[in-house]
């Protein structure tokens, strides 16, 4: 082999392995989020909250006198080996002091990060992830879920849909959900809730991501004329295309997009045409008018930084980082993982809306200080109209009957 070829090999190996042994005078924080692929949008929204929190901590002098350093990992589309490699890269190789994720693998992440003791924050919103945790709570004591599971979020959606100051013309509902664990979890719970309340679920459709042609389903819907259509697709384009095709010949139905209302692309693309659509955001800070001055300051700062209102996940991940930092400050050592995890579990964190606490399964259940916020699009923007629990109208908000019903 020629000399330059040897050099190329040495440089490549150096690049590959060189970073492993770097000494750090900072505290590394792992952030495994989708940076490429279908989940990039939600990954960006989660990252905004994480970055805002880390920047704030660093601006205030860092944590225990050390600056925090974000180490990102591309979770791509959450294939099992990618989730596992992410855990080994961040916790094993980079020796991060905590890991802050959003969607992270819906149970796969619990196994992958549960091998380490590093505090791991995820927004799986999945009963499957909780079931894995329950198998061995001691081993998985470092896993902290930032939002309630899909089943509970669906119950919250149902409570608010039934509480709306609106008289449904009939008791027929249509439910459309994705074929992943989130969509099925929410769809099943809503279907059971509607039936229990004496409603007829006239159509239940499970669709794959990427469904953008809604002609056949809309034909059925137009025949059924349901009082309520709930779509649970946590991705923007499917919700946008559904609504655009629906509104060409609408039925007098309340349109509920569930979590799908929160990706910014939905309101930014549809604008005022979306006025009237309802949906929800778990572990949310109601906006654009916050419940208190601290919350308002946070929203104003967020909007100033990113030039738009809060998407799903940003406040949750921000709060997760701050909760971890608070635990580290109290423990006095970022690498005493057991003590940090114990502190988080026992003490929770005093957030913008009060004290948040994780439950026995390390899930941040919907609670007054981290409620499920229910929105309606009004004037082309998300407006908080309800919070849950307890289910109550938000401040002086008003629910507007959608124009296609009038």
């Amino acid at each position, binding site marked *: 082999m020629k000399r330059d070829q040897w050099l190329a090999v040495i440089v*490549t190996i150096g*690049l*590959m*392995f060189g970073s*492993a042994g770097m000494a750090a005078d900072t505290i590394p924080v792992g952030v495994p989020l989708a*940076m*490429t*692929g*279908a989940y*990039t949008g939600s990954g960006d929204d989660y990252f905004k909250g994480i970055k805002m929190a880390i920047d704030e901590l660093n601006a205030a002098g860092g944590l225990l006198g050390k600056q925090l350093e974000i180490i*990102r*990992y*591309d979770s*791509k*589309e*959450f*294939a*099992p*080996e990618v989730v*596992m*490699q992410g855990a*080994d*890269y961040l916790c*094993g*190789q980079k020796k991060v002091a905590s890991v802050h994720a959003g969607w992270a693998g*819906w*149970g*796969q992440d619990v*196994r992958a990060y549960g*091998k380490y003791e590093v505090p791991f924050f995820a927004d799986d919103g*999945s009963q*499957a992830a909780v079931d*894995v945790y329950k*198998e061995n709570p001691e081993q998985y004591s470092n896993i902290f879920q930032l939002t309630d599971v899909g089943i509970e979020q669906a119950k919250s959606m149902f409570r608010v849909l039934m509480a709306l100051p609106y008289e449904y013309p009939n008791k027929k509902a249509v439910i459309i959900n994705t*074929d*992943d*664990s989130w*969509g*099925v979890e929410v769809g099943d719970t809503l279907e059971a809730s509607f039936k229990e309340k004496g409603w007829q679920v006239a159509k239940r459709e*499970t669709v*794959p991501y990427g469904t953008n042609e809604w002609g056949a389903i809309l034909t059925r819907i137009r025949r059924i004329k349901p009082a309520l259509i709930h779509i649970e697709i946590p991705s923007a384009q499917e919700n946008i295309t559904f609504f655009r095709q629906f509104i060409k010949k609408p039925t007098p139905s309340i349109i509920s997009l569930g979590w799908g209302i929160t990706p910014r692309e939905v309101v930014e693309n549809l604008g005022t045409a979306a006025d009237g659509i309802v949906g929800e955001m778990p572990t949310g800070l109601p906006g654009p008018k916050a419940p208190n001055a601290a919350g308002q300051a946070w929203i104003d700062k967020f909007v100033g930084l990113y030039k738009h209102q809060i998407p799903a996940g940003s406040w949750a991940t921000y709060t997760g980082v701050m909760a971890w930092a608070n635990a580290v400050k109290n423990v006095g050592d970022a690498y005493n993982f057991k003590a940090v995890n114990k502190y988080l579990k026992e003490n929770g964190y005093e957030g913008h809306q009060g004290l948040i606490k994780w439950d026995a399964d390390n899930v941040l259940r919907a609670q007054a200080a981290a409620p499920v916020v229910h929105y309606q699009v009004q004037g082309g923007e998300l407006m908080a109209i309800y919070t849950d629990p307890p289910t109550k109208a938000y401040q002086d908000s008003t629910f507007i009957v959608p124009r296609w019903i009038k």
Partner: protein
Amino acid sequence: MSWQRMAAIMGVVYGIVAILPLFVGDIRFIMQILIICLIWAVVASCWDVIMGFAGIFSFGQVAFFVIGAYTSGIFAVSWQVPAVLAILMAGLFTAGMGVLVGLPCLKLAGPYVALVTFGVHMTLMPLLRGDIGIALGSGGSVGILTIPPITLFGYAFSSANIIPTFYLTLALAVTCSVVILVVINSYWGTAFLALKDSEEFAVSLGISAFKYKLMVFALTSFLTGVVGAYYGHYIGMLSTRMLELDLFVTLMVMLVVGGIGKFPGAILGAFITVTVNELLAPLGSYRAVTMGALVVILVLLLPNGVMGFWLRRSKAGATST
């Protein structure tokens, strides 16, 4: 290329890989990547045999990988079949599925075979996530999260014991590669090439297109199924997210980088692609774009992949001397 040269290249590549734990054995992340490289090397090689040597435009390799993984996972979790036996059963089942998919492909020309096999890939996800999958034990959209590791003589090979697991994976990859090497240098391999170059002429010489095309489907599906099953037991969990296009495209890039029909180029392609992909990780969201651009440049500069380039260089060197 002579089989001796193929064997020598394989020996050098796997030999280098075999000594890497001496230097990076304590870096779990890199050991993980090496194990995954070995797994992809076998899958890409199988794809190369069916597409590069037999000339069948099959796009079903990822589907066969997932079928193998799920079959073994279901056997192990739902029926408590020991992992080693479950892997073998998964290989046989996948081979059967390969033959089933191959049968309609016998009557079809290139692009239509691609459509049928990619159709299998596309239908697998809703099948595994739906009621049928759940009834079979696929775990639906959640997947299977409790697959036991391979246990041999009381020793568990899992990500917790990374170095022994690495060598077990290496042994599996070498075994599969040797099988491929033997097959493509046997009468079967000659028959595959003959059918690829001129099916009519090959048939006139007495080569049965029916037999050999089904054989190549069965063989590549079996090996891919076995490796898929091994992957499931190694990772310990499975989800239908493996069927997203990410893995499909990555494997195709491995083939292109290594050189289609240039075995053991696919093995080299697997290691090069994964290494470059990891080196580009700091680019974040620009990684995919950069990787895509690199592949385009590579295809333009080295249309026959790294192996084609190396063969051309060595041939030119031999001529000049």
